[in-house]
C-alpha cells in the first residue's frame, strides 16, 4: 500500500490539547461536587461507596479501570508486531483475568461482607500477622503507584506527540486534574466517571477505527490483501512466536495484575453483594471488544508496511500514528485523543481510590486505631493526593521505571497463588504464606534474570504455591473462614449491607 498518503494532520494546537484535558476534568469535577453533597458523609462512604454500587456502574467501572491508556495503544502495537497472534495473546487473557475474579470475589464477599481491602483479609486470615498483611499492603501500594505512573506517562507521550505541548506540562496537568475531582467524591466519583469513560473507549473508539478504514483506499479488503501479501502468517492466530515472545508470561502477569490489585478488591466490597458475580462476569466479557476493535489499527499499520523508525522508534505509537496521518477530520482525531485520555483518567482515579482505602484501613486504622473519624477522613483524602503527587514527581524526574516495574512484578507474581490459596484452601497458614512469597522472590528473580521471563515467572509461581502447599500439608491447623465475619464487624462504624 502507498505510504505517501500518510501525512500528519494539521490544526492540532496546544490550546486544543489543554482544552481537552481541562474540559474533561471540569466535567468530572461538576459530577464530583454533586456526589460529594449527596453521597459522601464519611470515610466509609468515600472509600467503599456505602457498598451500594449497582450493576451498571460496577460493570462500567471495572471495564474502565482495566483499560489502561497503554492498553488502548498496546492492542494496536501487539497486532502490528506479531500479527493476529499478537492480538490473540494480548486480548484473550485480558478479559479472562477479570472474570477469574468471580469465584474469589464470591467467597470473600460472603465470608467477609464488611471488608474493605485485600490486605485487611490477609491480616485477619493469618491471625493478625503483621508480616502477612504488610507484604500484601506493600504489594498493593507498589501496584497502585505503577498503574498511576504508567498512565501518567502514557498520557504525556500521547498528548505531547499529538499536540505541541511539553510533556512535563502534561504530567503536571494530569495529576492536578485527576486528583482534584477524585478528592471530592472518592470511589463514587471514580465509578461514575469511570462508567462515563467506558462509553468513551467503546463507541467513539469504534467510530474512529471504522473511519480509519473508510479513509484507506479499498478499505478492509485492501488491508487484508496487503497484510497477506507481505506475510500470510500475520493473519494467523496460531503463530507460536507470539505465545513464546510475550503471550504466556503476559497471561500470568494479567492474572496477577487483577487478583493482587486493591483496585479490583475495593470494587468487590463496594458493589451491591447481589451484583458482584454479574459485575465481574459482564465486565470481563464486555471488555473484550475494546482491544479487538483498537487492534485493527495495528493491522492497518502492517498493511502500510510502517517501520518502527517511522513511528518515532516506539511501536506503541502505531495507533496514534494511523489516526493522525490517514487524513481523518480533526474532530475524529480529537475523539481518539479523548479515548486515550478517558482510559488514562479512569485508571488513575481508580488507583487513587484504591490507595485511599489502603491508607484508611491498612495504615491508619491498623496502626492508630484511636484515630477519630474526622481526622481519618482528612488523612485518607490527603494521603491519596500525596500518592498522585509522588507519582507525578517520579515521572517528571525522568528516572527509569525498571526497578519499580521489576519490584511490582516480583511482589504481584509471588503473591498471586498464595493469595488464591488463602481464599480457597483452609490449610494455608501464615508460615507458608510469608515464606512462599519471600522465597519465590529470592529464588525466582535471579532465575528470571538468568534464564528469561518465562522461566522466572514459572519459577516464582511454582515456588510460591509449592511452599504454601507443603507448609499446609505439614500443619494440621485449618482456618475457620467464619472468623472473617467476626473480625470485621463495624470497622468504620457502619452497618454492612
Amino acid at each position, binding site marked *: 500500500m502507498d505510504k505517501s498518503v500518510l501525512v500528519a494532520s494539521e490544526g492540532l494546537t496546544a490550546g486544543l490539547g489543554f482544552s481537552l484535558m481541562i474540559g474533561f476534568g471540569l466535567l468530572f469535577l461538576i459530577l464530583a461536587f454533586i456526589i460529594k453533597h*449527596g453521597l459522601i458523609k464519611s470515610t466509609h462512604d468515600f472509600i467503599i461507596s456505602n457498598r451500594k454500587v449497582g450493576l451498571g456502574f460496577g460493570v462500567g467501572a471495572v471495564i474502565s479501570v482495566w483499560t489502561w491508556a497503554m492498553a488502548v495503544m498496546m492492542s494496536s502495537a501487539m497486532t502490528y508486531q506479531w500479527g493476529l497472534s499478537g492480538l490473540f495473546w494480548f486480548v484473550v487473557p485480558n478479559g479472562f483475568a477479570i472474570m477469574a475474579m468471580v469465584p474469589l470475589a464470591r467467597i470473600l464477599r460472603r465470608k467477609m461482607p464488611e471488608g474493605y481491602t485485600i490486605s485487611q483479609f490477609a491480616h485477619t486470615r493469618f491471625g493478625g500477622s503483621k508480616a502477612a498483611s504488610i507484604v500484601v499492603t506493600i504489594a498493593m501500594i507498589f501496584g497502585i503507584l505503577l498503574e498511576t505512573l504508567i498512565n501518567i506517562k502514557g498520557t504525556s507521550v500521547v498528548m505531547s506527540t499529538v499536540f505541541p505541548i511539553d510533556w512535563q506540562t502534561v504530567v503536571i496537568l494530569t495529576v492536578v486534574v485527576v486528583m482534584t475531582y477524585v478528592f471530592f467524591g472518592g470511589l463514587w466519583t471514580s465509578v461514575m466517571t469511570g462508567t462515563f469513560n467506558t462509553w468513551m473507549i467503546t463507541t*467513539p473508539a469504534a467510530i474512529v477505527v471504522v473511519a480509519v478504514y473508510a479513509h484507506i483506499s479499498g478499505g478492509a479488503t485492501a488491508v487484508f490483501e496487503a497484510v497477506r501479501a507481505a506475510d500470510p502468517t500475520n493473519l494467523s492466530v496460531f503463530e507460536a512466536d507470539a505465545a513464546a515472545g510475550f503471550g504466556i508470561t503476559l497471561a500470568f502477569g494479567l492474572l496477577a495484575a487483577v487478583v493482587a490489585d486493591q483496585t479490583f478488591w475495593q470494587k468487590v466490597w463496594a458493589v451491591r453483594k447481589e451484583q458482584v458475580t454479574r459485575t465481574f462476569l459482564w465486565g470481563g466479557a464486555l471488555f473484550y471488544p475494546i482491544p479487538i476493535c483498537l487492534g485493527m489499527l495495528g493491522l492497518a499499520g502492517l498493511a502500510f508496511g510502517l517501520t518502527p523508525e517511522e513511528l518515532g522508534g516506539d511501536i506503541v505509537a502505531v495507533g496514534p500514528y494511523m489516526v493522525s496521518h490517514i487524513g481523518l477530520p480533526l474532530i475524529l482525531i480529537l475523539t481518539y485523543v479523548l479515548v486515550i485520555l478517558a482510559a488514562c483518567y479512569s485508571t488513575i482515579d481508580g488507583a487513587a481510590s484504591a490507595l485511599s482505602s489502603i491508607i484508611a484501613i491498612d495504615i491508619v486504622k491498623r496502626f492508630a486505631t484511636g484515630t477519630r473519624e474526622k481526622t481519618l477522613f482528612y488523612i485518607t483524602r490527603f494521603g491519596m493526593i500525596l500518592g498522585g503527587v509522588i507519582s507525578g514527581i517520579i515521572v517528571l524526574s525522568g528516572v527509569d521505571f525498571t526497578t519499580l516495574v521489576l519490584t511490582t512484578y516480583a511482589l504481584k507474581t509471588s503473591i498471586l497463588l498464595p493469595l488464591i490459596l488463602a481464599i480457597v484452601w483452609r490449610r494455608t497458614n501464615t508460615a507458608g504464606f510469608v515464606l512462599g512469597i519471600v522465597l519465590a522472590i529470592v529464588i525466582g528473580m535471579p532465575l528470571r534474570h538468568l534464564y528469561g521471563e518465562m522461566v522466572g515467572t514459572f519459577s516464582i509461581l511454582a515456588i510460591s504455591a509449592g511452599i504454601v502447599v507443603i507448609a499446609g500439608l505439614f500443619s494440621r491447623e485449618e482456618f475457620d473462614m467464619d472468623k472473617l465475619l467476626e473480625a470485621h464487624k463495624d470497622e468504620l462504624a457502619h452497618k454492612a449491607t
Partner: protein
Amino acid sequence: MSGLFIFFLIIGAVATILYAAGYATGIKQSFTDVEEDKEITEYKDSAYTVTIALAVIASAVIIALVGVNPIFVYAGPILAVVTTFMVGFAFFYERMMRASGNY
C-alpha cells in the same frame, strides 16, 4: 462518508442514547439507595463457568475470523458498540430485578 461509516454512526447513536438513559437512571438510583439503606438478603449467585468459557472462546474465534475474511475487521467495532449498549442495559436490567424481586 461511506455507508458503513454512517451505519456505525447510527448504531453508535442508538447505543449512546440507551447508555445515557441508563446512566441517568443509575445516578438517581444510587442516591435513592443511599437514602433508603435497604438490604437485599435473598439472591442467588448465578453459574459462571460456562459463561466465562464462552466469552473466552468467542473472543478467540472473532480474532481468528479477522484472518479469514476482511469483513470481520468490523466485528471489533460492532462489538465495542454492543459493549456500550450492554452497559447501558445493565442499569435497566438491575431496575427490572428490583421490580420483580428476583435477583
